[in-house]
C-alpha cells in the first residue's frame, strides 16, 4: 500500500490536470521509486489514481524500457545497445559488465545490487560507449572505468 502522503500528493497532482492519463508515466515512476519496481499491485494503484483500467496502465508500463515490471537491483545498469556504441565497442563493454557482475543481460546480481539491461540509444553518442545507472550517465567506458564505477557504487551501497 502507498503511504497516505504520497497518495494524497499524487491525487492533488492529478486533480490539477485535464486528462489524468497524461500523468500516467509520472505516476508510474513515482510508484516505481516507492516500490523499487512497478508491481502488479502498483499497476492497480496507478490505475485507480489515474481513472484508468489496470490493463491500460500495463499497456504503457510494458511498453517503456524504464518502467520495470519485474524486480530489479538497487542499481539498474542500462548499457547502450545502439549503432554508435556498437561501433565503439559495445560488445566488450557488455561482456566486461557480465563477467564483472557474473550475470547475464537482464539478470540481477545475487546481492541484489545490480541489474544489467541493454537499452536502445540513450542519446549520449558523443560519449559512446555509454551506459546509464539509475538515470546517471557514464560515458567513454572502458573496463577500468567500469571497475571503478562498480567499486564506487558497491561502496556507496
Amino acid at each position: 500500500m502507498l503511504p497516505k502522503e504520497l497518495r494524497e500528493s499524487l491525487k492533488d497532482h492529478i486533480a490539477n490536470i485535464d486528462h489524468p492519463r497524461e500523468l500516467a508515466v509520472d505516476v508510474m515512476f513515482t510508484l516505481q521509486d516507492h516500490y523499487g519496481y512497478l508491481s502488479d499491485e502498483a499497476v492497480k494503484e496507478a490505475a485507480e489514481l489515474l481513472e484508468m483500467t489496470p490493463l491500460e496502465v500495463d499497456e504503457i508500463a510494458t511498453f517503456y524500457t524504464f518502467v520495470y515490471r519485474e524486480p530489479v537491483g538497487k542499481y539498474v545498469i542500462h548499457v547502450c545497445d545502439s549503432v554508435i556504441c556498437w561501433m565503439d565497442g559495445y560488445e566488450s563493454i557488455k561482456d566486461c559488465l557480465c563477467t564483472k557482475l557474473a550475470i547475464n543481460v537482464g539478470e540481477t546480481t545475487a546481492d541484489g545490487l545490480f541489474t544489467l539491461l541493454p537499452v536502445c540509444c540513450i542519446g549520449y553518442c558523443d560519449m559512446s560507449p555509454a551506459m546509464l545507472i539509475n538515470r546517471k550517465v557514464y560515458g567513454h567506458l572502458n573496463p577500468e572505468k567500469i571497475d571503478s564505477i562498480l567499486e564506487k557504487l558497491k561502496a556507496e551501497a
Partner: protein
Amino acid sequence: MSKLIIDDREIEVSPGTKVIEAAAQLGIMIPRFCYHPALGSVGACRVCAVKFIQGPFKGVQMSCMIDAQDGMVVSTTDEDVADFRRHVIEWLMLHHPHDCPVCDEGGHCLLQDMTVSGGHGIRRYLGKKRTYTDQFLGPLLQHEMNRCIHCYRCSRFYQEYSGYRDLGAMQSANRTYFGRFTDGILESPFSGNLSDICPTGVYTDKPSRYFGRRWDYQRSPSLCINCSLGCHTVASIKYREVKRQEARFSEPVNGYFICDRGRYGFFYSSLESRPRMARINGKQCTFNQAQHAMIEKLEEIKKNSGSAAIAAVGSLRSSLETLVMLAQLCQTKRWRDPACFIDSSQVQNVKTAISRLEPQLRVSLRDIERADFILAVGADPINEAPMLALAMRQAQRNGATIVVIDPRPVSLPFPFLYLPAAPMALSAYLGSLIKAVVNRGTADKMGDGARKFYDRIPEGKKLAEAQPPLSSEMLQSLQQSRRPIIVCGTEILSETVLSLSADFALLLQAAEKQAGLFYLMPGANAFAGGILSGEKDSFLQIIEQIEDGSIRALISVEADPFWWFDDRPRLERALDKIDLLVVLDYLDSQAAQRANIFIPTATFYESGGMLINQEGRVQVAPRALLGGIPISQAGGGDHPPRLYDVGIAGFDPKAAWLTLADLANGAAQEDEKALQQHLWKQISDLIPQLATFSSIDEIPQEGIVCSCGVNIDSRFSINWSAASNIRHDSGDDFDLIEVDWTFGTEELSSLSPCLWKLERKPCLVMHSGRAEIIGLTDVDLVEISTETGSLEAELRTADNMAPGILVLPRHRKLAWQIFTPGKIRIRKDQIRKKQ
C-alpha cells in the same frame, strides 16, 4: 467523385473512399488483415499493398491508407506487389504455429487463405518460434496467442470501437501481447465479435469449440430475436443443431457486429430438455392425437360456455406469421382477441410508440451512429438492447453528446451525461428541454396544436422541483446539434413520455434540425404485437376474466406467463380455475409443463419467418434447418445410431402458425403452399408497404420499413396537467421498476449455459443515500414482503440513480413474481434486512 482505374477497370467512387474499398466495389478483394471497414485503416499489416502506376502516388503503397483520387491507375496483380505481399505473409507466418488442424479458425481463416493464395506454400524459416502463454477470457472466447499476427484488430475493436477497456496490447515489437491485465472474464458484452474480427485463430468461439468446420456447417441467414432491434445473424447448423451464430452485415441495422446476448442466445433451440413430443395431461402422444384432442376439447368448451370463453395468448418472440394467424384464428372462431402483452399500459406504450413513428422521424440504428446529440429517455441501452449502446458509442466517438435521463443506474462504455430522474419527472425534464431549445415561433410553424402544446408546457415551480437540474452543457450541445436523436424506452415509462419524445422530435425538426426518434420495444416482435392488439387486450385482462369465470379455456402460443406475469400465485390460481390450457411452444416452460394439451412448435430457426423490429422494419429470415433431435443427442453421447430411416426423430414440431391454421380449418390438412399464400395475403393486407411484393421471398434483405399504425392526429395531444404532476418523493416509499439486464433476464438467452457465467448476481438496487437512511448497506441480504408474497435478494447500492426507485431485474434465478400487476409501490417498512 473521383474516377480511377484498378486492374484495367474504371470505377467512380465518392471522395474519401480508400483504394481498397474502391477495389472491393469492383469485386476485387485486396488481401487485408488490419483493415476492416468498421475499424478503418491503420496500415499495420502491409498485405494490402498495390502498385500505383499513374496519378498522385507512385509505386508500391498500402491501398488502405490512400484515398482514391482522380487519374489513379492501380494494379493489384503487378509482379512487384504480388512478390511484396508474398514476403509480408512469409514474415507474418514466421512464428505462426503448426496447429491449423486443431484450430477452430481453420477453414475460414483469413491468414490461411492469404498464405495459400499469396503463394507462400512452404516455410523457409527453420528457427525457433515465439510462443505466448494464453489467458482465460471467460466462457465465450478461447485465447491462443501463438497464432497472433499483430494486426491490432482486436484491441481496436475492443477499446476504440466498443469502448471497453480491459483488453489491449501490451509489450512492444516482436513480443506484443493482446490480452487482459490478468486472466478473467471479458467485460464487454460485444466480446464475441473478436472471434469474427480476428483474421486468424487467436480468439475462437468457445461454446462451439472443436465442434466443426465452416465448410461443414449449413450456414443460413437468420435474425436475432433476443431483443427488439432485429439484428442480422448467420446461424451455423451442423448435425441438426444450431451450433454457432455470427454477425451478418446489415447496413441499416447492426452493421458488422452483434452483441453476445444475440450471438449466444440460440442454445434454447437444441436443448436436451426441449419438448419434441406432444403431450396430453403430461403423457406423450402423437402430434395428431394432441391436435384432435385439442379440437375436441375446444369444441366441447364452445358448446358449454360459448366461443367467447376461449382466450389466446401470443408472444413477442413469435414470428409475424404466427401472430397474424393467431389473430385470424381468434376472429374466425369468435374467440376473445388474443393478448400479446402483460397489461394495458404495456399495450398502450407500444401502440403509442407505433402511432408516433412517423416516417420522417423514424431512424435506424445506423442513423444513430451519425447523430451529434443523443437523448436517451427511460432507456438503458446496454441492458435492454446492447447493439444500441454500440451505435451510441460510435456517435460519441464522432463527437456527439450523449444524455441519459433515466431512473436506473445506467452505465455505458463511454462518457455520457446522466440525469437520474424519477419516471414521473421525465416529462417535466422533456418539457423544460423543449422550452430551452425550441422557441414559440418555431412551435407556431407546426400549427395550432403545436402552439397550444407549447403554451401549456408548465413553467417554473414544478419543474424547478425536478432534481437534479438540467446542466447547461446538455442544453448547449442540444442547441448546437444538427442531427439530434431521441432514444426512448417503452418499458418503464408512461405513454405520455413516449408521446412527448415524439413531439419533441417534431419540434426539433421544426427548428431545422435533422431530428430523429428511436423507440425500444419490449420484445422481438413487439411492433407486430402492437399492430395486432387492441387497446385493452392484455394478459392481465384475461386473468381477470378467468377469475370472474367468463374464460374457460386458454391457448398459449409460444408464451410463458410464468416468465413475465408479475403475480405468480394469482396466475396459478387462475390456471387452476380454467378447464383447458393448451400450450404451443418450443421451450419446456412452466406453462408447457402445466398444460393439459401441449403441442411442440418449431423454433424461429426451424420455421423462419418475418419479424418487425422496433423501427417498423419488416425483416425476413429463411428457415435455417429442418428440425429434429440433434445427432449429438440421438447418439446418447456416442456415435449416432446407424439407421436407414426416412423419418427424423423429433421431427414432429411444425411452425406454430401451421398448427394454428390446422386448428382454424378443423385439422383439414391443406396444402402448405396454399396456406402460405393465404397468409401472405393477410399479412400484406395488414402492412400496406408489402402489397407491392407477391411473396415473402421478394422482401429485400435489409427489410421494408412499414408505417402502419402511424397516427398523425396524436401529435401534440398530451395531457400536461397529468404529466406535470410530479409526485414529491417523500422518502418513505419506493417505486419498484422491473428491468432487463444484458444477461439473465431475457427468456431465450437465459437458457444458454455459456451465458450463465456472465450473468450478474440477482439483486435489488437502491440509492445509497436511501439505503443508509433505512440502515442497509451494500451486499446485505434483504427481504421484500408484500401482500402477495415475499422475495429475498442481495441489496446493491448505487449513487447514480433516482432516490425514490427500487430496481429489480427480472432475473431467471430470482422468483420475483410476487407483486400485483401495475405500478408497484414498496413501503420502507416492507424492506427488511435478513440475517
